[in-house]
């Protein structure tokens, strides 16, 4: 076999030749762009935090931590506190996560575990993803004109029958926590469902066959094999859904009632940080803007903490259910 020198190969236009200098440049260039894009994200987040933090600084030094634990928002007296908004943000998002998470995961199981012919499942998946395309102001209007009138008789009946339970201790007048949380649940449903579907679909089919082979029923296979195997993906779906719920603005500003109170009642009006920001920014004066920046910083911190906790839980779940990677 005649040996062909490296140099010869390099000159020939064979596809199996070594990389040309152009290839090297392209490779380096692409690598640089990829690095720059990744770095840009970090820079952007840092810049946003610094910018908001800088504008909030006067308010932080003036109101201190008391800002997070007091309940009054009075521009004229320059007294600001966001405890009711923090409470409302977490309460409404948790309720939404509970509902949206439950339904989202149930839908994901329904669509991936051979309950439906594959074509029909694909149609359903598209419809659920379409939910994500509905603008939030449309959800808000739907909440005001459809959901609230539907919910009101049920809520007021619950208040009459079980008014002693703190969750039902007020009647639903119109805007309130319950309609807001319900709309929020519908809004996070597509996020939770579609990421959970992807997680479940990633499990090789033979895993399920193996479970069946060991004599499990369908539900045992789903609950004890499939769900734990997909746990990290499903948790990621829940964390993303929760993050979306925390930051949702328009629909909540329309539905939650803008009332700075802390109440366990599902039917009482409340307020959230995002709704406060949206409704107060347009005509805020200088002093109020600083306080609003502080509130924005608090919202950012809550979101970051939720994401960090979510990541930790996800890591734990991965270790527990899916062998160490």
């Amino acid at each position, binding site marked *: 076999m005649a040996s062909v020198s490296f140099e010869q190969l390099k000159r020939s236009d064979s596809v199996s030749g070594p990389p040309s200098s152009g290839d090297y440049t392209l490779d380096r260039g692409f690598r640089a762009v990829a690095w720059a894009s990744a770095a840009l994200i970090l820079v952007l987040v840092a810049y946003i935090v610094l910018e908001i933090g800088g504008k909030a600084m006067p308010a932080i030094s003036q109101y201190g931590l008391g800002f997070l634990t007091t309940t009054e928002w*009075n521009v*004229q007296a320059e007294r600001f506190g966001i405890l009711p908004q923090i409470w409302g943000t977490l309460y409404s998002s948790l309720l939404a996560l509970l509902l949206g998470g439950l339904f989202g995961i149930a839908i994901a199981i329904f669509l991936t575990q051979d309950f439906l012919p594959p074509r029909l499942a694909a149609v359903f998946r598209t419809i659920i993803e379409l939910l994500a395309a509905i603008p939030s102001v449309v959800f808000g209007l739907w909440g005001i004109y459809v959901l609230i009138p539907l919910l*009101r008789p049920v809520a007021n009946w619950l208040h009459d029958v079980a008014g002693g339970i703190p969750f039902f201790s007020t009647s639903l*007048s*119109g*805007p309130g926590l319950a309609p807001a949380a319900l709309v929020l649940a519908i809004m996070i449903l597509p996020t939770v469902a579609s990421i959970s579907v992807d997680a479940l679909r990633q499990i090789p089919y033979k895993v399920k066959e193996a479970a069946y082979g060991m004599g499990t029923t369908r539900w045992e296979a789903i609950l004890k094999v499939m769900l734990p195997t997909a746990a990290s993906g499903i948790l990621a779906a829940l964390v993303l859904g929760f993050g979306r719920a925390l930051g949702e603005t328009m629909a909540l500003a329309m539905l939650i*009632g803008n*009332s700075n109170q802390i109440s366990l009642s599902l039917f009482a*009006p409340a307020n959230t940080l995002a709704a406060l920001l949206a409704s107060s920014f347009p*005509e805020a004066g200088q002093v109020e803007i600083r306080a609003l920046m502080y509130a924005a910083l608090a919202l950012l911190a809550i979101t970051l903490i939720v994401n960090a906790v979510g990541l930790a839980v996800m890591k734990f779940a991965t270790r527990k259910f899916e062998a160490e990677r």
Partner: protein
Amino acid sequence: MMRRRILLAAVIGGVGLMSAALAQTPAVPAAGAVALHGAGATFPAPLYQKWIALYGKEHPAVHIDYQAVGSGEGIQRFLARSVDFGASDSAMSDQQLRQAKAGAVLVPTTGSILALAYNLPGVEGPLKLSRAVYTDIFLGKIRHWDDPRIQELNPELKLPKQVITLVARQDSSGTTYAMSNHLSAASEEWRRGPGTGNVISWPSVTMTARGNEGVAGRIKRSWGSFGYVEHGYAKRLGLPVIHLQNKAGRYVAPSFESGRATLAANVGQMPADLRLFLPDPDGEEAYPLISLTWLLLYDHYPDAAKSAALKGFVSWALSEGQRHSEAEGYIPLTDSVATLARAAVERVR
């Protein structure tokens, strides 16, 4: 062939739309046209819009726009000189007047009454509230509609066991000023507690909304709600309004007639700077919640054309314009006040 026809139809349709749009935009301002920008109170906004539309028809060279952003913001923009005129239902405080580097001429333009509107499905007929009772509702002491103190005043009505949902203004507002000013006059406890201001610390259960239209809309959509709005806004949305007890102890319904009578009986107290507040008007038939609303003008405008156009418009509003007040639900100024106001406008240079 088919595709080409569709394309043709689309082009024709597009041209049609464009020409329609062109036909609807107002004529390009002629040479020598003046544009005036104003911002402020939402309370008189429907009337101001009407005036601007009517005046614009007669004087096509003058373009006026008015943004209803609330009295507090109106005063801020006026002080920051980012508008040609401001508008406020709480006039301006002494401190704000001191901040007005370019001077300020306060011109009362119209009067109006505030209504306490409510939404109680199934309750027919006028609901009466005494001074002590509505103050206690605003203080958050009376929490349910079937409270014995409300029932006692309205023995013929069957009141539901529903939570009273207060609705108040979120933004800095002259309507809030007029409301809290009255409550301070009517109740010692209110004066020492929340007090008077453009922003009030309402009880924490209160829902807040932006602008008079926001409050009226919120009341319309929430059962058991109760709040204060300019009377015209309540009337336009068909909200039921409360008959209030006045200083003399009589229960009076908010109406054009009761408002005009109240204003006529009390304008004698008008001070020289035209800042007349009537927190608790006198008179047997007086309706307790009444307020004037003001335009805020600068003492001097560097642009003579602007100054002349603005003076023309405001003088017109204070004479011709007053005839349109009633149709929009406002109370025209009495002749004596209108004369004083026109004299104030003449001081603007």
